[in-house]
């Protein structure tokens, strides 16, 4: 068995002096799709933020091992270069910065880190076009300012577009499915299925079973009070749907 892609060990994360993750441990092997569910406040988004390196969080205990390296010493842009991608739950707006310029800067930054050549504007445009098609987005999308005036669904599709362009090894989707209609959901699920490879893993944070019904999921984790309370197969989701979280925790 090859070394896991990601290994979180006994992690405690504090924000504004309040511990949000307490002794959280999680392992994600290469090439797998893992799902994280949990009630609001269980620490799901904090886990995602910590993996991406968001400022404002103090790690007071534990470690994160990624591809055999210590993730916590890497800045966010270095983590991106190393292949970590976070699809934000609430993507921020950057008025004035055009999508095409942003996408090119980001793609070339990550390619540069990996020692690949930068893409010139025209070849890059072709590259983006192919990805736009997959997500059924028109080209005028590229002229708009990043997330500025985007509907909720457009913002989420923008995140997935970037996922397609940056080809990460670990894609963390923070409630990407909320705000998507059935069609968009199916498209996203297709994208994930097609991106699956022995080298790529997904960590999907979600509330909804809908997305998961279109995907092959390797493992489901339930977060509760800042740590993984239990892990198993998709039967956990069914359990929660039937008995609620209370029911699930009672049976533990």
């Amino acid at each position, binding site marked *: 068995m090859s070394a896991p892609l990601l290994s979180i060990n006994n992690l405690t994360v504090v924000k504004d002096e309040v511990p949000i993750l307490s002794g959280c441990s999680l392992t994600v092997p290469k090439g797998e799709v893992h799902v994280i569910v949990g009630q609001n406040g269980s620490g799901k988004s904090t886990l995602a933020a910590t993996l*991406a*390196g*968001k*400022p404002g969080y103090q790690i007071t205990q534990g470690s994160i091992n990624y591809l055999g390296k210590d993730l916590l010493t890497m800045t966010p*842009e270095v983590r991106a270069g190393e292949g970590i991608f976070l699809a*934000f739950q609430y993507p921020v707006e950057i008025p*004035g910065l055009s999508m095409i310029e942003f996408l090119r800067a980001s793609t070339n930054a990550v390619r540069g880190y990996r020692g690949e050549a930068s893409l010139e504007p025209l070849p890059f445009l072709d590259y983006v076009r192919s990805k736009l098609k997959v997500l059924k987005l028109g080209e005028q999308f590229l002229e708009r300012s990043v997330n500025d005036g985007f509907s909720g669904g457009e913002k989420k599709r923008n995140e997935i577009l970037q996922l397609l362009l940056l080809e990460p090894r670990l894609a963390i989707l923070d409630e990407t499915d909320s705000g998507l209609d059935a069609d968009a959901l199916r498209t996203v699920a297709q994208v994930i299925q097609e991106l699956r490879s022995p080298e790529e893993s997904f960590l999907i944070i979600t509330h909804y079973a809908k997305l998961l019904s279109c995907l092959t999921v390797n493992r489901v984790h339930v977060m509760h009070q800042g740590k993984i309370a239990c892990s198993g197969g998709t039967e956990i989701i069914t359990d929660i749907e039937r008995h609620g979280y209370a029911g699930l925790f009672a049976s533990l």
Partner: protein
Amino acid sequence: MPQNEQEIIAKTTSKSYPFGFRSVIATEQAERGLNEAVIRFIAQKRDEPVWLLDWRLAAYRHWLTMNEPTWANVAYPQIDYQAMHYYAAPKQRQALNSLSEVDPAIRETFEKLGIPVFEQERLAGIAIDAVIDSVSVATSVHETLQNLGIVFCSLGEAVQKYPDLVRQYLGSVVPANDNFFAALNAAVMSDGTFVYIPTGVHCPIELSTYFRMNAANTGQFERTLIIAEADSYVSYLEGCTAPRREENQLHAAVVEIVALENAEVRYATVQNWYPGDEQGKGGVYNFVTKRGHCLGKRSKISWTQVETGAAITWKYPSVILEGDESEGAFYSVAVTTARQQADTGTKMIHLGKNTRSTVIAKSIAAGESRNTYRGLVKVGSKGEGAKNYSQCDSLLIGGKSSAHTFPTLESRQTKANVQHEATTSKISDEQLFYLNQRGIRTEDAVGLIVNGYCREVMSRLPMEFAVEAKKLLSLTLVGAVG
């Protein structure tokens, strides 16, 4: 903001000036100080006609009665007007017949600046007139311009060759008694640029002038006069650099534009004067009066500026919209870093009927700088149908800088529409983290966001210079320059 991010921001907004080298060129200077004798010396050196000397002297006498304005939101130590040299011309060895005869030291300076004055091949698209200190050193005269009857020469030359034109329009837009610095300029004006576009002519190339302030303790008092006859068009670019100095240098320039019926003049400035060191010492004091007169019906004048330098900037390019249906525009990006101070803005005066004005001003204040926008939009009682739209936005970076906006809207016309909007914002941590997560380093992220913020203004610059201006903007704010 976490400590390391604060450090990055502090580092990216400190400035390192790439043009701070000094050229050793033999110059001839007037004695220090300002008095009638110095003015006569200047007029004599430039071989000026009597009417011009009289004009200078009248302006000087008026200047003596005026007080330096103190209301600008900038603070600077007293300027000692008697301590400066008001004339400095690089010594030429002989009369020039061709460009290759110009003083090698001068040519070298321009090469260091990367200005292709003396390379004919690169002049295909741009005609350049270069000014070192007070005298236009060389003007590359382009055949095309000559054939179209376009005059593009130094003001000194225009006074000799086209005295009637100069006399008719000089001081017609900015009279000598307009303000303190305009009076000073009129008295001691050094050389500058003269542009004349005849009726119906569309100038096919960008006209450009580069300035350098080379000698220590010289103020620079260039004067530019642009006349666009009916149905003509010209696009003009002014770009400036200055070497590092310990003392501050004074720059009190005047630009006058006259646009006749249906003419259009676009004036763009990309300015990168030396801003002073981290403590604000030794930079350039940039006090400029720039005014356009839309004299004819349907005439258009637009000012576009990207300002990233000068220790202290005080300038308000204005447009007087006298002709019916005339249009004025002001597009500006003003960046201040370290301890710079800028007090800048525009005045749009709507006098005629159905006139329009557009103001888009973006200020970016980083370091401990102070960035002030001051604007005036005035609609006179005869300005029926006037329409104005102004958008003034401030972007603050780092937490120690400040932005001030003081617009004044004034209207005496029931059938006019004046609209002003202003916002202040900052580059948020969320935005920086979003870009970081996409692999982009914070320094580059700041550059991307700032350039996006200024997009509307940058798009108004002639293409060749837009690229340079964007780079300049990024360099000013992103990492150490050079």
